[in-house]
C-alpha cells in the first residue's frame, strides 16, 4: 500500500502542478468566456471524481459487502473512505461551479436541476457519514451503511440525466456526447491532465483514509483485547 500511496501521490502532484501552469499561463483565453474558461480545467474533473469515481466506488464496495460470498470489512472501509473523500469533492464541485456561475449566469446559485440534485447527493452522503458514527457492532454498522449507500447512489443517474430531463440552466454534456463542442490542442490536453490529476488525488486520499480506518479498527481490537485481559486478571486475583 505504501508503494501505491507514493505512486498516486507523486502522479497527482506532478499532473496538478502541470494543470496549474498550463491552465493559468500557457492556454489561451476562450473565445466566448474569456478568462473564466480557465475554471473548466478544474470543475468538470472535480465533478467527475465526485459523481462517478467516488460514488461508483462506494456503491460497488457496498454491493460487494452485502453479497455474502464477497463480504469483508475491507469493502466496508473502502466504501467509507470513498464516501468521505467523495463528499469533499461534491462540496468542491458546488463551490467551483458557483464561482463559474456568478460571472456566467449572474448568480452564485440557481435552483437548476443539476445543481439541486448534486446538493441533494451531498446531503444524502453526509447522512451516510452520520450513520457511520452511530455506535454499533462492526458488521451491523457495515450492513446498514452499505444499504444506505446503495439507496443514496440512486441519485447519481438523476444528477447525470437531469440536464436532459429538465433542460434548465446547466448545459448538457459539453465535451463528450451528442452535439459536444470541440476542444483543441493544449486546452484539451490540460483538461485531460486535470481529469488524471484529480482522479489520482482521489485515489491517494482514499488509500490514506482506508489506512487510517484500518489502523483505528486494529487499535479498537487491541484496546478491547487489553480490556478483556485486564478484566480476566481481576477475576483471577479476586
Amino acid at each position, binding site marked *: 500500500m505504501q508503494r501505491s500511496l507514493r505512486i498516486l501521490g507523486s502522479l497527482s502532484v506532478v499532473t496538478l502542478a502541470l494543470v496549474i501552469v498550463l491552465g493559468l499561463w500557457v492556454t489561451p483565453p476562450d473565445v466566448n468566456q474569456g478568462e473564466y474558461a480557465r475554471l473548466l480545467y478544474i470543475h468538470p474533473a472535480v465533478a467527475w471524481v465526485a459523481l462517478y469515481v467516488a460514488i461508483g466506488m462506494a456503491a460497488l464496495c457496498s454491493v460487494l459487502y*452485502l453479497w455474502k460470498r464477497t463480504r469483508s470489512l475491507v469493502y466496508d472501509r473502502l466504501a467509507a473512505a470513498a464516501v468521505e473523500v467523495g463528499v469533499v469533492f461534491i462540496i468542491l464541485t458546488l463551490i467551483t461551479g458557483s464561482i463559474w456561475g456568478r460571472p456566467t449566469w449572474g448568480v452564485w446559485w440557481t435552483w437548476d436541476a443539476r445543481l439541486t440534485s448534486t446538493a*441533494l447527493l451531498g*446531503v*444524502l452522503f*453526509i*447522512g451516510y457519514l*452520520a*450513520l457511520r458514527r*452511530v455506535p*454499533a457492532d462492526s*458488521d*451491523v454498522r457495515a*450492513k*446498514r451503511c452499505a*444499504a*444506505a449507500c446503495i*439507496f*443514496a447512489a440512486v441519485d447519481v443517474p438523476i444528477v447525470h440525466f437531469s440536464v436532459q430531463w429538465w433542460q434548465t440552466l446547466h448545459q448538457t454534456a459539453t465535451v463528450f456526447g451528442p452535439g459536444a463542442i470541440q476542444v483543441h490542442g493544449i486546452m484539451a490536453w490540460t483538461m485531460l491532465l486535470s481529469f488524471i490529476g484529480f482522479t489520482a488525488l482521489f485515489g491517494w486520499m482514499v488509500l490514506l483514509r482506508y489506512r487510517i480506518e484500518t489502523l483505528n479498527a486494529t487499535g479498537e481490537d487491541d484496546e478491547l483485547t487489553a480490556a478483556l485481559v485486564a478484566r480476566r486478571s481481576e477475576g483471577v486475583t479476586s
Partner: protein
Amino acid sequence: MWHEVDDVVKVVLQMWRDAWLVAGRDLRIELRSRVGLWQVLPFALLTLVLFAFALGPQPATLARSAPGLFWLAVLFSSVLAAQRSMAIEGTRATKDASRLLGLDPAGVFLGKVLALLLEIIALEAVLLLGVVLFFHVHVSSWPDLLASCVLAALGLCAADVLYGSLAGEARTRATLLPLLVLPAVAPVLIAGSKAFSEATSRGAGLGSRWLGILTVFALVYTAMGVILYGPLEES
C-alpha cells in the same frame, strides 16, 4: 414445478398474514395511545399555520404556495409518525417476540407500512381540508389529487420504515432519521407538489406524468423494503 409454485404461494400468503397481524397491532397501539391524534396531527396543522404566518395573508400567495406547503407538512409529520412506529419495533422485547413467533420480516415491513399508510392518509385528509378552507385552493380534479395523495403516502411510508430500520437505536434515531429520509424523499415532495398544482389548476389532467413518478418511487421503495428489511433487522 407445481410444488415450487405452491411453496411460493404459501410464502406470499404467510407474508401477507404477518403483515395484517403487524398492521393490526400497530394500529391498536396507536388507537390506545392516540399519539398521532394528539401530537402528530396538531404538529401538521401548526406547520400549515406557521407557513401562512410567514407568507402573509394574501389569498393569491397562499393559494400559489399551498401545494408545496401541504407536502412539506405531510413530510415532516410522516417522519414523526415513522419515529413512533419504529420505536414500537425497536425494543428488544418486540424483536424477540417477532423472532419467536416466526414472523416473516417482509411481512413485518409491509405491516408497518400499511399501518403508517393509514395514519398518513388520515392526516392528509385533515390537511387537505385545511388547505382548501384556509389557503383558498380550488380543486379541479379530485381523482388526480386523491391518487397522488395515496401514491405519495405509500412511497413516503415505505421509505420512512426502511430508513427507520437503518437509523438504529432510539437515542440516535430522533436526529438521524430526518437527515437520512428527507433528502431521499425529495422526489415525492417535487412530484407530489406538481401533481397537486396540476389537480388544482384550471386546465387539470396533466398530472399523469407526476403520478407515474410517484408510482415508481412507491414501488421501488416497497420492493427494496421487502428484500432488505429482514437482513437489516437481523443485524
